[in-house]
Structure formats: C-alpha cells, structure tokens
C-alpha cells in the first residue's frame, strides 16, 4: 500500500491482499502434498532398486522364485520392525529385539521337544517374547528409566538368558510342529501363485498393526505420547500403560519372529540367532519415514523399509557384489535414502 503514507492512520478499504481462505486452501494443498509424500515415502526408492537390480542382473531379479526369496528373507525383519515402529512412534527405542528373538526361539524349541506340550511351542515362544517386552516396558514406564539404557541392558541380559536356556548349545527338533510356517507356502492359485507362510504372517502383522495404530483409541494415544508426552499426561492419557503396551508388543513380535526362525531352521542357538537384528529393524523403521523423536510415522513405511533392506541384500548377491562391499553399499544406501527423505520433507514441523 504505497499510497498509504507511513504515518496515516486510515485503514485501507481493501486491505486484504491475501484472502485468508485462499491462503488456507493453498496451505492445505501443500500439506496434502506433504502427506502424500510422507505416505509414499520410500516406495519410489524401492521400485528403482528393484528395476536397477533387474537390469544389472540380466533379468534375474523379477522371477517368481527370486521374489519368493526376497519376501521370505524380509519376513522376520518386517515383523520385528512392526514392533519397533510402535516403540519409535512413542519416541523410544528397543535394542533388545534380537536377543528376545533368540530367547523366544530357544524357549519354543525346548517346549517343542516335550511330547505332550510340543504343540504349545509356538504360543510359548510368543509369550516368552511378550514377557521380556513387558519387563522392558515396566522398567521404562514405572521407574522412568531411559529406553536406550533399559533395552541396552536387556540386549545383553536376555542374550545371556537365551544361552542359558539351551545350556549354551544348539537345540534341534527336526519334527517340530507347525514347521510349515517356516518353509511352506500358502497356495492361492495351484501351480501359479503361492505365498510363503512367513510372508503371510508378516503381512498379517502389518495389517493388524495398521488397524491398531489408525483405528483404535490406543493408536491415537501412541501417537500422542510420542508427539508430546507431557501434554499426553495432562490430557489424562495413561502414559505408563501406553509405554508398557508398545514395549510389550515389540517383545511379543520379537517372540513371533523367534518362532518363525525356529520353524524355518528346526533349530536355535542362543548365541548366534538374531545377532544385530535390532539394527535391521530400526533401519527399516527409519527408512519408512518414522520420526526418531516420535509422533510421526506409518506402518506401511516400515514395510517398504524392510523390503528395501531385503531387496538390497538379495540384489547385491544377484549381481555378484562381494560380501565386504555389500556392507559398504548397504550402509551408504541407508544414509542416502534418509538424506533424500529429509531433503524432500524440509519445512515440515518436525522430522
């Protein structure tokens, strides 16, 4: 308004150059774009990786058999990462999932060898995981200890427990019940399409997680605790209950992961099983766009993240990259992918 002198007091008649409604509409349009970008997230990266590997491996990537291998390899990590998503959404971290997976697999295999109890091995493994998870959650929620420290402690302690369970040996059970979930496949169209049971389980876990996070009161409370814990407490949310729940779920799913591994291998070793699985799970969650400080993220992103990790491992082997270089490349891709994500989401309230 240059014609309005600096010391004039008259309100200009038409002083609304930015119609608030218009500005707001554009604002939502931008927010919607941002939400779509968030939702789609790393999907383009996943597709590019798949196509890239397909070309570089002379068309050996997109074969039914290879895709089967990829999804089978990603299944356990997907399940662990789903649990990790719950935890990271509250702003926490669970470093103990690899150890819990080992302890649960051990517990499951040991139970499976009892003639009368054998069929109960699967719930026993899942329950073992849940108990460890609830212990983590109890320490974090009730004693107000930092999640990193508590789960770092249980990473070590539960690993020890896993070794104790089998007296530090490998436990075998070639006739373990429900072995089909580890190696069988669900036939959808006979002779044409079948899905490994491991992958069916992983997808069911993702689906149920999505329902819990997006369609239940508890889900909103999880996001609320991660977004602003003090405000959540003041709003009457039982923060302690939410925390025990998320660590319980993470432990339970680690237990399920242990059962999946046990069924696949017919064996478990307390020392070796699940070593550094927590890192792959955390990586999948972060690749999936979930904020490390909590409150933002989605379970579908986690699924994409877990697939990216599996595709990378598989693709690099297909094109004959040596084991040593696989580590280097995987690490760089993870950093690059997250950097790209940050770059695209610049300007969002928090990342």
């Amino acid at each position: 308004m240059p014609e309005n002198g600096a010391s004039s007091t008259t309100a200009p008649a038409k002083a609304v150059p930015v119609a608030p409604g218009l500005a707001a509409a554009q604002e939502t349009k931008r927010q919607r774009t941002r939400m779509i970008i968030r939702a789609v997230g790393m999907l383009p990266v996943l597709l590019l990786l798949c196509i890239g590997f397909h070309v570089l491996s002379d068309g050996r990537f997109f074969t039914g058999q290879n895709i089967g291998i990829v999804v089978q390899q990603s299944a356990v990590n997907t399940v662990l990462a789903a649990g990790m998503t719950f935890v990271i959404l509250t702003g926490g971290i669970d470093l103990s999932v690899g150890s819990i997976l080992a302890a649960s697999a051990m517990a499951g295999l040991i139970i499976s060898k009892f003639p009368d109890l054998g069929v109960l091995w699967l719930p026993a493994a899942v329950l073992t995981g849940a108990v460890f998870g609830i212990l983590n959650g109890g320490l974090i929620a009730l004693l107000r200890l930092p999640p990193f420290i508590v789960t770092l402690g249980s990473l070590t302690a539960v690993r020890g427990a896993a070794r104790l369970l089998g007296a530090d040996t490998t436990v075998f059970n070639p006739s373990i019940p429900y072995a089909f979930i580890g190696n069988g496949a669900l036939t959808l169209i006979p002779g044409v399409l079948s899905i490994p049971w491991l992958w069916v389980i992983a997808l069911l876990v993702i689906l149920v997680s999505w329902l819990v996070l997006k369609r239940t009161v508890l889900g909103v409370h999880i996001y609320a605790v991660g977004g602003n814990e003090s405000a959540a407490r003041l709003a009457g949310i039982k923060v302690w209950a939410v925390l025990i729940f998320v660590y319980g779920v993470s432990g339970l799913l680690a237990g399920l992961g242990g059962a999946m591994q046990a069924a696949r291998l017919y064996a478990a070793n307390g020392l070796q099983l699940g070593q550094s699985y927590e890192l792959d799970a955390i990586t999948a969650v972060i690749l999936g766009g979930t904020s490390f400080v909590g409150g933002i993220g989605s379970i579908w992103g986690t699924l994409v993240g877990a697939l990216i990790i599996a595709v990378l491992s598989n693709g690099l082997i297909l094109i004959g990259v040596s084991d040593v270089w696989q580590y280097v490349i995987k690490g760089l891709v993870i950093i690059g992918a997250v950097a790209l994500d940050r770059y695209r989401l610049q300007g969002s309230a928090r990342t």
Partner: protein
Amino acid sequence: MSEPILEMRRVSKSFFSIKALRDVDLTVYAGEIHALMGENGAGKSTLMKILSGAYRPDPGSEIRIDGQPVQISGPLGGRAAGIAIIYQELSLAPNLSVAENIYLGREVSRGGLLAREAMQAGVGPILARLGADFTPQTQVANLSMGQRQLVEIARALHARSRILIMDEPTTALSAGESERLFALIRQLRAEGLAIIYISHRMDEVYALGDRVTVLRDGTLVGSLDKGDIRADTIVRMMVGRDVSSFYKKEHDPRNDARSGAPVLAAVDIADGRRVKGCSLTVHAGEVVGLAGLVGAGRTELAHLIIGAAPMISGHVEIEGRTVSIRTPGEALDAGIAYLTEDRKALGLFLDMSCLDNINLAVLGRDAKFGGILDRDKARDRAKRAFAGLGIRAANVAVPAGGLSGGNQQKVLLSRLLAIGPKILILDEPTRGVDVGAKSEIYSIIDNLAKSGTAVLVISSDLPEIIGICDRVIVMRAGHIAGQIRRNATSPLSQEDIMALATGTEQLDA
C-alpha cells in the same frame, strides 16, 4: 533523531504464491522505542525474520541502514548490520556460563585454547552497565527468566548491535522483572539504540512506545506518534473494525438460581513448596479470577487440584463430596478440565490433526467395542467445534501446529469442552492470542458460565480479570491473600488486586 537508522521500503515476502508481506514501509530512528503491533499472522515475525537475515525479501524490497542500502543474508548478516533479536523463546544454552553464551560463535582463543578469563573480563562491563546481579561465570540454568533475558540483551550489546528487536519480551517475566526490563529499555533508548518492540499488550505499548506501527494481513495499516496512541485506535487498526464490547460479560450468577452451592472447593491445599495451605470455592455459573504475581503459586495450585502434582495436605471437594484426584485423568473423570498456560509444551499435539487434538480426551468414551475409534462421531465433533468456536483452518485434518495462536487455543479449548466439564480451570487463556480471538474466547467463557459451568480463570492480565470475572481471588507467595467481589456499587479495581498481590494492603470479603 533526524536521520533514520533503519529504513525499510516496499518490503515484500512471498512464500510460493502466498504474499506474507506486501510493500511494507518501516522507518526507525536511533533513540526511539518503536512498537510493532498486529494480530498473529499479520506479518510481524516475517518482517523481523527479514531483518535478522532468516528470510530474504522479494526483489524490489529495499533496506537501508544509516542511509546505505544493505543486503542481509543469514544470521551473521543481521549481526553484521548491527541488528539483534531477543526472541520469545530465549536462545541460550542453559548448560553454559553467561560469558560463554555471550561469546557463543565468537569465542576468544589463545593458541587454540579457550581464553576464559579474557571472555569473562570482556563481559563484566556490559553486565555492570545493565545492572545485572549475577557474574559472567554463572551457569545460565541457574538464572531466572528475567536474568536470562538480560544475558540476551548483553549478548546484543556485546555484538555492538544498534537495533534491538524484542519479540513479546515480557511473556515469561513477573511484574517486577517486567518493570526492571522497561527501565533497562528506556536506558538503552537514552544511550541511542533503536528498539523495535513487538507486543500484544496494550499497557506495555502505552508505557514504552514512542511510535506504534500496525500491520494487518501482511500490509502496513499505519503508524501513530506518541500523542495519538490510544487503545481503541490501535485495536481498530489491528482488526480492521470496531471492537465495541471487547470483554464479553452478560451472565451474572447473582441472577442465577443454580449458583447456590459450591461446585469446586479446595480445602487447605499445600504441596510443601510453592503452595502453602490454600482454600477456594467456585460456584456453578460463576467466573472466578485467580490473580497474583508470577511466581505466587497460581499454576501450582491448579496443578494440585487436577492431580498433576502431589499434594501433601488438604483435599478437594466436588459438589460437597470429597474426591481423591491423583492424576489429570482422574480429574477429568471427576469433571474438572484444565487448560494449560503452556499451550505448545503441555497442551497441543502440534503434529496431530485438529480432529485428533479436539477428540483426544473423549476417544475412549466414544469408542465402539471398547477401543475402536468412532471416526464419524469424531469428525462431527471437530466440525461442530470449528463452527461453534470459530476456528479458522482449512479443514479439521490439518495439523494443529500450523494454526495461529488464537486458533490453537480454541482447538485446545474444544478438547476440554468435549468432555462437558462441571469445572473449567483456564490458565492464562488468552496468552499469545490475537485481539479478535481474545474477544471470542471471552464470549465462550461467558456462555459456559451461562450454561452453569464453574470457571476458574488464572490470568496475569488484570483488565481481563476485571472484564470477565464475578469474583477475584488473589494469591501472594503461596497463600490466598484475599478476595474481591464484584458488586453493583463497586466494580473490581486493578488497584485493589495489585494491593493484595503485592501485600501492601489486607482485604477480605
């Protein structure tokens, strides 16, 4: 005074296609306090961010300092141009000492080692000039908010800034600290600094401003010289219309049959620290003010009532029955809703949608099958809240963090109203809220009282307390100092409240 120290000409700033600022002119002279006013979203912060170098203005904008055109880019650019900003949220590192904070980014080193003594010696004279009662070695974490602000100002002076921008500097200060700050600002003016003072508070602008510039919707409305500064003029310039009855108060509980028995009674409540045996009552349909200086223990008392902090003695009665409230959740169950004074840190979930923010407290009650969200009900409730409270946002799905202060406050208020509380405790309900929304919040409070809700309003804004309350309880140093009742012959007076708050007079109703 003849040559302006800062001239901004035709300054515009667009974000994508949205113009946040349009052809704004601002002229500031050395040795003047220039108040900048406008509702939230009027463009004040954008203008200041351009001055600090955080934003680059659109081409065609012109900024001159001492008559010379300058380009300000990046925070160092602002500093180089002699401009310093004291932000609302202070930007000090609490784990470092005063001297280290003042030298932050420009540390003095000798042979690669930090020259602590030299830095401390360099800070000393400035702290003395500002009348600081702490040493350069003091850790910032140990300082009060007022003292921290002093450190910020010292940092600006140390950088030889000549234009000081203060953004709502008294928000976190007690009355005493504010007074000292005002004296200091006047001293800096006398020393020849130019001060741009951003505030929502009319009394501060009266007390300090040599000139007032008002922005609205990204454009300059105009400037007023000292003699022309009047509240009604400024408000009209800010909102673009007459705000005839700013404080809405139609309901009078004395004409209401329901207001007999007390709904909320706090009996001899203490926490052993800040609250020392306080009793108060609030009746149905009554709006009771809780006044006092910052630090008198008002928020702490509210926190005890709602179970956010443990009480060591006393109890709470609701409708005559003693209730045990140990958590804010139990307070909600008992019918007490509390609006926090710290909306962003303790109230809203900035990343969550308005819809979720509004429904958060009643999700469980609305849920189907014991825990499945009832999304239709939630959407209806949010839409009703938007319409009923006049929340301005594109739709209910946008994140609450993107709204203006007033709209955020209304979102938070809708969450409490969704519960249908018997008792509403509002802690600084209009802090950081623009003029238009303030008036709307007052009428919401009035309507609630009309419908029989017992309302307790904690506020440091005395005109507000006087404007909307039936009765005022005054706290001083953890005690109830007394109360003042509005009646036909003697309206509530600012002087009586201050007398009780500061302890210069004993009064009891």
